[in-house]
């Protein structure tokens, strides 16, 4: 009986400011599997969509960066919990997007879930690893702490539709940045579906904003945007990366250049976090109590 039933198809939409809008342009583009079979029509985002996403990300930055590291860790872990429950959906989407077997796709999804757990654990540790007291030669308290840089534009990898995507988004938000993510151009569906998990994981709207469309078209306004603080060029080819890095220089965005990644499943280091951290050093005089001192 189930054979006769016609399935209900999902309308894939963007994820911006905690909501699921269509592209303001009204445009879509055809997404196919590796054999060319139609999968869905994804929104073809415009420059205006990119700017709206930056506004949403900026609006979310204050509360997200001001949340305790513990709270951010809980929320990132919640994302892993929610993903685990919808594992089958992502296995299917990743298999279709990347032309993988179910088993191979499952490995990718499992690694992506574990990656959220990995970064959930980093939120309250990165400051202990990269910050610290500095023994300056004088009567001063001197402490360096990492702080998030702000709004980060993230060009997701073009091939690894889900594990690659998670591997570049999670480190950005773990430390308190907010993100505008451009999904892999030909493999946007797992990324767009991620919004559904983020929306139900206590992650405040606007912390992650996900756009689909032509990477070059969306990345250009992001790289030039004066209210974007950094850009991860993971999903850009060499020529585009150079062009975007030049545009990014206009307000001295922090730029993470594309690096060849053979295997996204390898355990990451801290580089994807530190790339989007500022170091703040606070000085304060320690004063003196008087000449005598205490000998304990």
């Amino acid at each position, binding site marked *: 009986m189930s054979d006769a039933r016609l399935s209900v198809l999902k309308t894939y939409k963007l994820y911006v400011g905690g909501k699921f809008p269509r592209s303001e342009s009204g445009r879509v583009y055809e997404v196919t599997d590796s054999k060319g079979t139609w999968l869905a029509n994804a929104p073809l985002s415009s420059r205006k969509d990119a700017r709206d996403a930056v506004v949403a990300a900026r609006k979310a930055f204050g509360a997200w960066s001001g949340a305790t590291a513990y709270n951010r860790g809980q929320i990132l872990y919640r994302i892993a919990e929610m993903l685990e429950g919808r594992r089958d959906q992502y296995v299917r989407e990743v298999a279709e997007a990347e032309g993988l077997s179910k088993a191979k796709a499952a490995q990718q999804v499992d690694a992506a879930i574990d990656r959220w*757990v990995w970064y959930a654990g980093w939120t309250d*540790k990165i400051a202990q690893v990269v910050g610290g007291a500095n023994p300056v030669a004088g009567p001063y308290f001197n402490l360096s702490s990492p702080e998030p840089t702000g709004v980060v534009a993230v060009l997701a990898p073009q091939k690894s539709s889900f594990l690659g995507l998670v591997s570049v988004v999670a480190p950005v938000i773990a430390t308190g940045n907010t993100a505008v993510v451009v999904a892999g151009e030909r493999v946007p569906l797992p990324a767009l579906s991620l919004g559904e998990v983020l929306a139900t994981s206590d992650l405040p709207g606007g912390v992650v904003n996900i756009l689909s469309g032509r990477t070059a078209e969306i990345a250009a306004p992001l790289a030039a945007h004066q209210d974007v603080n950094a850009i991860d060029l993971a999903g850009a080819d060499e020529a585009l990366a150079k062009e975007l890095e030049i545009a990014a220089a206009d307000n001295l965005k922090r730029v993470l250049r594309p690096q060849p990644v053979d295997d996204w499943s390898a355990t990451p280091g801290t580089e994807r976090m530190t790339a989007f951290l500022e170091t703040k050093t606070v000085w*304060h005089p320690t004063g003196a*109590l008087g000449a*005598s001192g*205490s000998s304990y």
Partner: protein
Amino acid sequence: MTMEKRTSAFEYAPAPESRAVVDIAPSYGLFIDGEFAEAADGKVFKTVSPATEEVLSEVAEAGEADVDRAVRAARKAFETWSALPGAERAKYLFRIARILQERGRELAVLETLDNGKPIRETRDADLPLVAAHFFYHAGWADKLSHAGYGPDPRPLGVAGQVIPWNFPLLMLAWKVAPALATGNTVVLKPAETTPLSALFFADVCRQAGLPKGVVNIVTGDGRAGAALVAHPGVDKVAFTGSTAVGKQIARTLAGTRKKLTLELGGKGANIVFDDAPLDQAVEGVVNGIFFNQGQVCCAGSRLLVQESVHDEVLDALKRRISTLRLGDPLDKNTDIGAINSAQQLARITALADRGEAEGAERWSPACQLPENGYWFAPTLFTNVTQAHTIARDEIFGPVLSVLTFRTPDEAVAKANNTPYGLSAGIWTEKGSRILAVANRLRAGVVWSNTFNKFDPTSPFGGYKESGHGREGGRHGLEAYLDV
């Protein structure tokens, strides 16, 4: 049961937390190798509610044979547990953290019943910190190469852990979470008077699917603890408790390869300068000595107040103490619960009497104590000198000794004039004075314009005879790593 003077317009209505949320079995066994079992010799002891003296349950009393079995189980489990990828160990700990969050109310009520501390504290302090501690350490399990102990720091083996009764589940979390995160397995001996929450924790481990033998719980008295720390199959000993027992353990471990961390007594000084925000300071002083009935190793049990504001601070302090509500620990309005045991009550009583006998001036608010259970009214001593016993010995109860000073130098000298060195408090609006005083205090934790703050990311532990080693934070990992 309130000490409140009849000046307020409204009385508090009773607001008891429901006991129905927790189901205490009539008896519990030892938790060894994933199973509950009776002691080999069949011995049991009773655990009572210190607020009512009601028997809550009967618990197996571990002997040497049981401790030996637990250590063997932990040894066996160590092979597989330590070989697990850190990311997998992490996920077990995250599960435990989540289950502790889910069962937080149940465990808070249980802890209040078995320990006597107010539900407000177990609900708002103990349990959230317990879960946070597991959550924090879960994240370290697969990040140890980033912790500053070399590229691949190894676990030690079997950790024998002996914990006190003042924060039963929180002390368990401080011990178990870092041990498991770093790849060790555990035999834990909870305090004789507060075994229940550790036994409930065994059930949390079951729900989390933790492999058997990774956590073993042996209940009993000091003899079980002594057998555990002396067991040749134990690689690491962690103890929180009295300085006297800590020294005994240090002697027992002499000449062995066992790694030792000790978190012992304290006689914390809370230093109030004349420029301090006094209302805030008074709140902090009250919290510093009456939190958990003063049964806190880092309690601010000595108030050092600058002479120029002595009278003002004392007036405010007495006013504030008079509003504290002592009584049913399950009542959500209760500030001060029961003393944990008859022995502890006797010790507090004797030390307070000694304070009076030695000439210090004793003050307590008008206070009606419940008829059953173990109770001690909040108590303040003035005209205390550094020579007085109550200024030197750890009382571990709701008793504050007030001393004065004139200069910051004198404050530092007096604060450091103790064999202990666990905690201190500084109250002043001047940042440079905070830092200058903090630099010269010989104490492992210094709170400025706050007190009794705890966080899993922040290392805790003492100087001098308050013990050695730190718990919590990146620094706390060292205690469980072969470095």
